[in-house]
């Protein structure tokens, strides 16, 4: 489809396009309920097909578990889920010769009420809110598993849950977090605000974007279904050959991870094309908000790294079902192959997790210091450096694994080098604080906490990058502390900062300030008190994923466990704030409470369905605080002919459109 070069004609007339299926009751229109029916039917079909194909194998008869049936069941369940949601309706419509609706992204977007959030709605703002609720659910589920882990670790010898259950819980916690949180910022905020920040009325591929969201509940349910099969014993890394030895819960892990991977690839692809092609006139690359830059780079990481994971998961599944031997050393395969494939994805994955946090925090800091970002180019260069270097460091997860040691100095060097662009993020943050006028709103508090936490996380990463020091630290609680500080202390704090910053814009409702401050302080204090001692625990010899540890470490573990429970309470405070503010108190928010300059805050709250009545012309950078007579960031009502004139040099002629 051509880029809309005639925004005047795209302006909706009157009420806007007719929502699809007007007049049909909600339960006859495709939605989550039909999706569930489709999923159940699909699973039964797939399982039946699998029994037919592989029921006769001696392997299935001996073990009373047919992995082929389970995997095919999941696959057809996902197809049924999507079909029930109506994802394929447009495709089949085209195949049957029916014309596509003019404005698919607005279909259902103007429906009042909540039903549109439970359907395959193509408006990116609806998808953003769907992602927000989804991500909060997945995060809290993963957090519950963490509470169970810490409960077990209260004692070095007494066991609340058995060893199999402990590994079930550990695997579910880790996988739920690492798998689902990859989209925790790109989903809710990237999808919602990406187009708004670049001055676009739409994303490039609304169907792919919505599909990317609807794959996440499927991945969530499939991952949790592993619990019915006894879980998976490998933790979130899924190392072979233990993964081949494991029972049926492992299929759920590989399938769910691969499915979430597909969701990430689609979301990333859509974001790249949108940002390249749908920027409003005047939105030069040098004026792009830093958050949009971070989404752009994260999307490249997703599109390029995640297919490697999908391949690894697929090979893991074939090893388990059709007895290929990719990862079985005795039959000519290699366990190292899995490790390399997984970590080739795994390292860019952690930057997929970290980079959006950098972007959100930079936005928040500029607004609440009321200063331009110090060194915009350095910030972008830092994120770019992190993105590029993240491809060259993955072997630092494998320093002790027995791979050839000749590359170790090289990977030590690249891993050390990646701390330089990461340091730029701090340079920019620190520079923005210089001679600023700092307001301590709740998003700003989360930003400050981000800098503190990521500092500790990043410095501990330098400890890990040193190969000799890594001999003691690898695989121990030191690593756990490092990645919890960077991912939870970084990304999740940025996520909550983003929620407090942007939720008023998305929903038009304020979150309660007092509860928000209580949430912040309890979360910050108990987060640090939970994870700081883990550095010591790791250095004192406690490996990861154990339920028994040396007796002298009990006191420290108890301190950590109790802090973790209190951290859980802080999440509860957030949940109470979220639910009560959105459902009961509902304090209205209008306009621009933070007096931010960026484009999304110049619109109504919440934004109109078509985002902009007319495509705006961008006039200045969103970071021009403090500059006398700085023009506003955009002209939201450009005169007729300006847009055409702006496009005339940019290819409107190529598209055959007159200026």
């Amino acid at each position, binding site marked *: 489809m051509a880029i809309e070069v005639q925004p005047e004609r795209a302006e909706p007339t009157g009420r806007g396009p007719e929502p699809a299926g007007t007049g049909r009751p909600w339960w006859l229109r495709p939605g989550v309920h039909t999706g569930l029916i489709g999923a159940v039917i699909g699973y039964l079909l797939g399982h039946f097909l699998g029994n037919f194909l592989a029921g006769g194998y001696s392997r299935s008869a*001996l*073990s009373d578990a047919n992995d082929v049936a389970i995997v095919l069941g999941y696959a057809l369940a996902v197809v049924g889920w999507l079909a029930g949601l109506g994802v394929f309706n447009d495709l089949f419509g085209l195949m049957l010769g029916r014309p596509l609706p003019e404005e698919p992204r607005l279909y259902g977007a103007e429906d009042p009420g909540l039903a549109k959030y439970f359907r395959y709605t193509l408006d990116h703002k609806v998808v953003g809110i769907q992602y927000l609720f989804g991500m909060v659910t997945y995060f809290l589920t993963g957090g519950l598993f963490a509470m169970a882990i810490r409960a077990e670790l209260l004692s070095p010898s007494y066991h609340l849950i058995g060893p*199999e259950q402990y590994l079930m819980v550990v695997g579910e916690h880790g996988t739920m977090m690492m798998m689902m949180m990859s989209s925790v910022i790109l989903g809710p905020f990237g999808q919602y605000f990406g187009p708004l920040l670049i001055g676009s009325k739409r994303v490039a591929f609304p169907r792919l974007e919505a599909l990317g969201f609807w794959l996440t509940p499927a991945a969530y349910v499939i991952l949790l279904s592993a619990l019915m099969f006894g879980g998976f014993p490998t933790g979130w890394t899924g190392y072979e050959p*233990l993964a081949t030895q494991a029972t049926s819960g492992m299929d759920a892990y590989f399938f769910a991870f691969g499915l979430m991977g597909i969701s990430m690839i689609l979301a990333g692809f859509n974001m790249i094309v949108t940002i390249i092609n749908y920027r409003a006139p005047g939105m030069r690359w040098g004026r792009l908000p830093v958050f949009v830059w971070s989404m752009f780079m994260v999307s490249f990481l997703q599109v390029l790294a995640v297919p490697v994971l999908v391949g690894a998961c697929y090979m893991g599944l074939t090893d388990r079902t059709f007895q290929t031997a990719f990862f079985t050393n*005795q039959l000519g395969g290699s366990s190292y192959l899995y490790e390399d494939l997984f970590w080739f994805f795994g390292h860019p994955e952690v930057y997929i997790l970290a980079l959006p946090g950098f972007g959100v925090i930079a936005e928040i800091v500029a607004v609440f210091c009321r200063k331009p970002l110090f060194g915009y180019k350095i910030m972008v260069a830092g994120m770019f450096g992190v993105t590029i270097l993240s491809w060259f460091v993955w072997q630092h997860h494998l320093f002790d694994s027995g791979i050839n040691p000749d590359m170790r100095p090289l990977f030590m060097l690249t891993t050390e080098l990646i701390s330089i662009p990461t340091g730029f993020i701090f340079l920019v943050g620190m520079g923005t604080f210089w001679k600023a006028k700092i307001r301590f709103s709740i998003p700003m508090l989360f930003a400050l906490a981000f800098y503190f936490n990521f500092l500790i996380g990043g410095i501990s990463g330098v400890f890990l990058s040193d190969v*000799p020091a890594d001999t003691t630290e690898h695989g121990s609680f030191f690593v756990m502390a490092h990645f919890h500080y960077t991912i939870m202390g970084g990304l999740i704090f940025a996520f909550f900062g983003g929620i407090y910053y942007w939720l008023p814009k998305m929903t038009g409702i304020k979150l309660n300030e007092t509860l928000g401050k209580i949430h912040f302080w309890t979360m910050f204090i108990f987060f640090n008190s939970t994870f700081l001692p883990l550095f010591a625990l790791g250095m004192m010899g406690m*490996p990861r994923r154990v339920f028994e540890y040396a007796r002298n470490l009990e006191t420290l573990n108890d301190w950590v466990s109790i802090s973790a429970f209190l951290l859980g309470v802080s999440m509860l405070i957030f949940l109470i704030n979220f639910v009560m503010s959105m459902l009961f108190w509902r304090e209205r928010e209008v306009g621009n409470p933070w007096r931010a300059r960026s484009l999304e805050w110049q619109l109504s709250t919440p934004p109109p369905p078509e985002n902009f009545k007319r495509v705006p012309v961008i006039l200045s950078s969103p970071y021009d*605080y403090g500059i006398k007579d700085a023009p506003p960031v955009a002209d939201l009502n450009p005169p007729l002919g300006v847009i055409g004139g702006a496009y005339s040099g940019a290819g409107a002629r190529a598209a055959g459109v007159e200026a």
Partner: protein
Amino acid sequence: MSTTDTQQTPAAAEPRHGLRLLVIWLILSLAACLPIWFLWYPHMPPGRMSSSARHQQFDIAILAVIAAPVVIGVVLYFVYAIVVWRAKPGDDSDGAPIQGNTAVQATWIIGTSAIVLFLAVFGTVELIGPAGAGAGEGPSPIWTLAGTKTATWTPGGKDILEVQVIAQQWTFSYRYPQFGGMESVDLYLPIDTPVEFHVTSLDVIHSFWAYQLGVKADANPMVDNVAYTTPEQLGSISVRCNELCGIWHAAMYNYGHVVSQTAFQSWASGVQAKEQADGLLAALPPYSLTYDPTVIPQLGSNLVKVVGVTGAAGYYYPSNYPVQP
């Protein structure tokens, strides 16, 4: 200050933030680095029981001494900023429109690059010097310990002691090829002797982590992972599995001792003799660098290998298996 002064030089009232920060930073950094080096370093993990542990302890101390001023600097800056530059209540104006500062940016880039490059070179030197720093180097190690490898080990000389670590679900056992391939569940090592560990696995990936020795080497099936160290102090060693290997991973640990060379020799020869007499040595598979548990020579062609090696969907642990092994 006269009124004309304040009108003409308002900037003179602005305190020298950079200088203040630098001075406070220097004082705090010294206050941190000196105790780290002199008080904490001798007690840092993983201790000094072996050459690898000692070098790792040194590395961690150097890293701490470099990291402490960085952490102090950044935290100090943010605390200073939020104290000095907070918006006064009711002040709605914008901050100073500073877009960047080339000198600051250049200094930062050069400074961080210098630290990082130093650490990379330092890390490489510390990796190569202590023969791989106790990390598993795979079947073809590059950085080895000096010494002679002999068919039998004798104390006093420069003989390298070879110890094979066999990891399986869920225990470690140790074979000494220089003592007839005898197997033990306790890891005894002689002091001041270069030790060459050969770590392998019988089933899934494990990892041999001898904490006090500063040795960590992953155990992969059909792979011989070599790691080096030289025990330098007497004492006990705890060995834990460091790679998740199934439900009893947490219980996969045992212990060892570093003893004098003569004590070690008499222990090892004694175990060898006992296992010879018991017929255990003859029953064990011949010593080799890797083992394939599906190939049992005594069974010969009677072993049913056609069903395959992998445990997919339950060869080793069918889904209806009890949890207790």
